[in-house]
Each structure stands twice: as structure tokens, then as C-alpha cells.
């Protein structure tokens, strides 16, 4: 199990305080290439905030984030994205009045560093549009490409969120409850995609997910956050057997609680 390879991503004593409230509390964790780590914990445990600290949406109060051994704690979100940390948001976070295709095309354009081209026509950069369509096809959204993003049903907006993340082609991909609020028949599309990414040995995937069956089938490893602190870390079978997890998490949520989602 132990890999000699250095981790792709690592947090050391990563901490953020909001006033007196410590939302993420000295979390130290390393993530290997080619693995999928599930992050679980009750609502308000600090999972989304931990993601925000890694991808640079929030500045850390203490501790560090390193990517390929290089410290990136002081970098802003755009620089971290450029270096290979991509993320999809828990609350759908799109360009609401732009088309579905344009939402993805903008991600492709960023990856191709084409944003400072002032004098050519964006519509003539066919290669960018074709690449955008490729990600739309992978997420089953190609037939909605010309729709305005805000007009998509919720499930399709979640898919678009994933399409945008894929289009960034980052080494690290973070999914924050990607299937929340999706209808039962839409969930497999997203799970297949994540499975597919996981199969790509060059990627490092972090997944926040409440559905335990999903976690069990996808994760190589589970870490548990509770009140901002990392309280358990190990392979799924091991972690799921822990009392702290059963009490805090599985006790209420495993039975029928998530089935309505």
C-alpha cells in the first residue's frame, strides 16, 4: 500500500478561523497520484471549507498547502488552477446568462492561455469550440449546448459544473457533492465519469460525498472530518467500521436517509 512516490498534493496543519470559530483545524493530509480519496463528515464539518483552502478560494489562517512539493499557500485561486488544481462547486456556480457551450469554452480557453487575445474573433477559434463540445458530449449535454446555463434543470447544471471541471484538464480534481439533488437516473452519468477519471493513473481525485454506497464503490481511501478536525483516515472498510464514523455519520444517514436524493 505504501508508495515511495511523493504526494501530489499535501496539506500541513491547514487551519482557518472565522472570528472565534475554527472551521478547519490543523488538517494534515497527503494525496497520491492515481487515487480517489473520499472526504466524509456531517454537515458543517468543514469539508467545503477544506476544499476552499486547497483551491485558493479562501486564505489559510495557518498551515500550508503544497502541490508537487511546492508551497502554494499564498497563491490565489487562478494561479492554483493554472498549476493543476481544479474543482467543482457544491453550490452550482456557473455563468448564468452565458450559453452552456460558452461556460465550457471559457474553461478550455483558460487552459489554452488564450484569454489575452484581443483582436481575433472568439467564434473563429474552432479548435476551442470543438474541445468544449467534447466535454459536453462526455457529460451528456451536447444537445443542450446552445441553451442559456440558467435555464437548465438542476441536474443538468450539476453536469455542466462537472463538464467545466473536466475541461480544465487539471491533475487534481475536487468534487463537492457532485450528485446532490440529482435524480436517480442522472447519478450514474456522473459516477461513471468519476470512475473514468479515477482509472486515469495521472489524476488525483478528492470527493465529498454523502452517499455511502457511492463512497464504498469509488474510494481508495476515506478521511473523516469532524468539527474541522481530521478524526479518521484509512481504507474504506476500516474507516467505516470505526465507532466515530458510525456514530457521527452512518448512524443516522446510512439507512433510508439519503434515498430521497
Amino acid at each position: 500500500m505504501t508508495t515511495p512516490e511523493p504526494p501530489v498534493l499535501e496539506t500541513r496543519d491547514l487551519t482557518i478561523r472565522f472570528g472565534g470559530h475554527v472551521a478547519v483545524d490543523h488538517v494534515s493530509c497527503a494525496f497520491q497520484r492515481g487515487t480517489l480519496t473520499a472526504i466524509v463528515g456531517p454537515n458543517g464539518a468543514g469539508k467545503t471549507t477544506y476544499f476552499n483552502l486547497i483551491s485558493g478560494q479562501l486564505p489559510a489562517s495557518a498551515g500550508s498547502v503544497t502541490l508537487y512539493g511546492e508551497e502554494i499557500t499564498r497563491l490565489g485561486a487562478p494561479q492554483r488552477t493554472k498549476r493543476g488544481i481544479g474543482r467543482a462547486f457544491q453550490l452550482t456556480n456557473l455563468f448564468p446568462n452565458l450559453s452552456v457551450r460558452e461556460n465550457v469554452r471559457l474553461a478550455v480557453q483558460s487552459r489554452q492561455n488564450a484569454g489575452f487575445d484581443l483582436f481575433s474573433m472568439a467564434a473563429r477559434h474552432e479548435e476551442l469550440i470543438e474541445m468544449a463540445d467534447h466535454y459536453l458530449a462526455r457529460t451528456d449535454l451536447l444537445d443542450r449546448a446552445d441553451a442559456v446555463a440558467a435555464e437548465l434543470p438542476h441536474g443538468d447544471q450539476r453536469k455542466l459544473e462537472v463538464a467545466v471541471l473536466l475541461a480544465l484538464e487539471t491533475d487534481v480534481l475536487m468534487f463537492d457533492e457532485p450528485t446532490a439533488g440529482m435524480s436517480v437516473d442522472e447519478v450514474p452519468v456522473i459516477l461513471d465519469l468519476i470512475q473514468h477519471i479515477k482509472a486515469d493513473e495521472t489524476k488525483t481525485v478528492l470527493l465529498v460525498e454523502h452517499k455511502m454506497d457511492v463512497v464504498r464503490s469509488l474510494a481508495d481511501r476515506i478521511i473523516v472530518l469532524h468539527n474541522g478536525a481530521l478524526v479518521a483516515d484509512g481504507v474504506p472498510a476500516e474507516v467505516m467500521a470505526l465507532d466515530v464514523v458510525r456514530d457521527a455519520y452512518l448512524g443516522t444517514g446510512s439507512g433510508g436517509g439519503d434515498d430521497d436524493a
Partner: protein
Amino acid sequence: MIGTLLSGDLPRSKVLSVVMVAILLGLALAPFLFPGTRALNTAATICVFIVLVASYDLLLGYTGIVSFAHTMFYGIGAYGVAIMLDRMPGSWAAIGLGVAAGLAVAVALALVIGLFSLRVQAIFFAMVTLAVASAFMILASQLSGLTGGEDGLTYRVPRVLTPAFKLFQDKLFGVRVDGRIVDYYLVFFAALALFLLMLRIVNSPFGRVLQAIRENPFRAEALGYRTVVYRTVANGLGAGMAALAGVLMALWQKYTGPDTTLSLGIMIDILLMVVIGGMGTLYGAAVGAVIFILAKNYLQGLMGAASEALAGLPLIPHLVHPDRWLLWLGILFILSVYFFPTGIVGRLRK
């Protein structure tokens, strides 16, 4: 061909297409269609304001930046040429130097203001621009040795641009083509070129990023776009375009003063024009400028006539007295915003 010229951004509405063609033809043939000093002056003012308002739309409508310093940049461009022509009357070199200096100062100032204040909240940026623009206005009136103070500068432009110059011996379509008309066409073609250039910029990959930032800056950052940098560049571009509009106005009016370039009154006019026409469309800037300037130049006259015709009636003559034209323009504005919240162009494209 037309698609490339318009950067693929067609009017996308039959009525709007007709309106745009009418504006283009009206302005292109203005010296022949509407002879007379007053009409030509109105046409030239419209050309300049189309550029000025479009450059403001680049900020407000495309990037979501609220700035009150646009007339300052407009003034910098105008004063650049005015000051040089004041020193070297009638010289083309003076114009060249003035354009270069005005552009450099405007863009540099916009970049500095942008870098220091665009990373914080929008309201803070708006306040900074208001403060800088006010300070600049005071500065311009204090440095009277350079700027002519409150009186402004009156200067001589190259002879080709003056009424004394005759392009042809004979009249063309019944109109004597003098330097005034040459000057008009200089303004017209420069404005057309600048408008098409801005249309290209907003449809470029860069322009798409600006719209993304307007829509959701947080998301734009997560995609890897450094919003401060993009906003700052947009601010510099808008300032440069405004300065060029100022250059055209300076060449047309042969006078530059604080009231014609720097005043906050013009700033409010620009805001009204961009909102009436429709933000984030550029075509809206053109439509808004045409309507507003026609109203400004002719509403007063119409109202004067109405006021006289209705003399004797109680109250009504006072309501339509020419001095109330701003009141009526205000009402027109409120109605148009109420009924067309996305502006005239937004409405036509629906």
C-alpha cells in the same frame, strides 16, 4: 465580409438592422443630407459620443465596472491635442504629439487606478474614480497657464480642416466641400473605425473573459482568469478609447474647456445614453447616443416653439418651457428604463 467587419456580432433583429443602417447612412451622408452648421455639428457630436459611450459600455456593460472617471479620460485626450495645438497652431505634428501624449497619460492613469482599486469592492472603485475625476477637474482649472483654466483653450487646426480650405472648385451635390466637411469626415471615419475595433474586442477571446467576469467573477477566478488583471486592462482600453473620442472632439470644436470635456454633467449624459440604448451590446451605445444628442439639441427648440404656441394657457407653457428640457429628458429616461430595462437594443433583440 460584413460578418468579419462586425466581428460576427450582427444586430440580430430586423428593426435594429434597419436602425443601424439608417444611423450609418445618416452620418455618412450628413453633410449632403442635412446641410447647415448646426446639423453638421450635431452629426459630428453624435460620431464622437458613439465612441465615448461605446467605450463606457466596454466597462459598464461588458465588464461590470462602474467608473465615474470616463469624462476625465475624454478630457485628457482633448486637452492633449488642445495644448499642443495651442503651442504649435495649425500643425499636424502637434496633433500627433497630442494624441500620443493624451493616450499615454489616459491609459497609464487608468492602469494605475485599476491596479490599486479594482481588486476591492465595486463601490470602492466607483468612489475612487469619482474622487480622482473631481481632483483632476480642479487641477485642470488651476493649471491655467497650460489649460487656459476655466476659459479653456481656443486654437487653430491645420488649414485643411478649416472652412477657408476648399477641396473642390465646384460644388458637389449642391454643397461646397470645404475644410469643415473634411474635418467632419475625419471624425466620421475615425469614429467608425474605433467602433468596429471595439466590436472586435468585445467578440474576441479577451472580450468573452470580460463577460464572464461580469457574470460571475468568483467563477472566472476558479477557471484561472485573474480578474484584477483583466479588469485593469479593460479599464485601460476604455480610457484609451475615451481619450481618442476626446481627440476627435478637440479637432472638431477647435475649443477645449472644462465644461465641454471634464464635467460630471457629461458623465451623467454618458450613463443615460448607455442605459437607454442597452448595456453590453455596443449597438446600444450608438442608438443611445443618437437619441440623446438629437433630444438634447432639438428638444429645447421644439419645446420653445410649443411653449410660445401655448402662451396664455395656465401652467402648460411653463411645463414645456425650454428650460425644462432636462426634466422631460429625465421623464423620458425613467419611462424608457421602466419599459425597456435591457435598453432599446435589448428590447429589439428579444
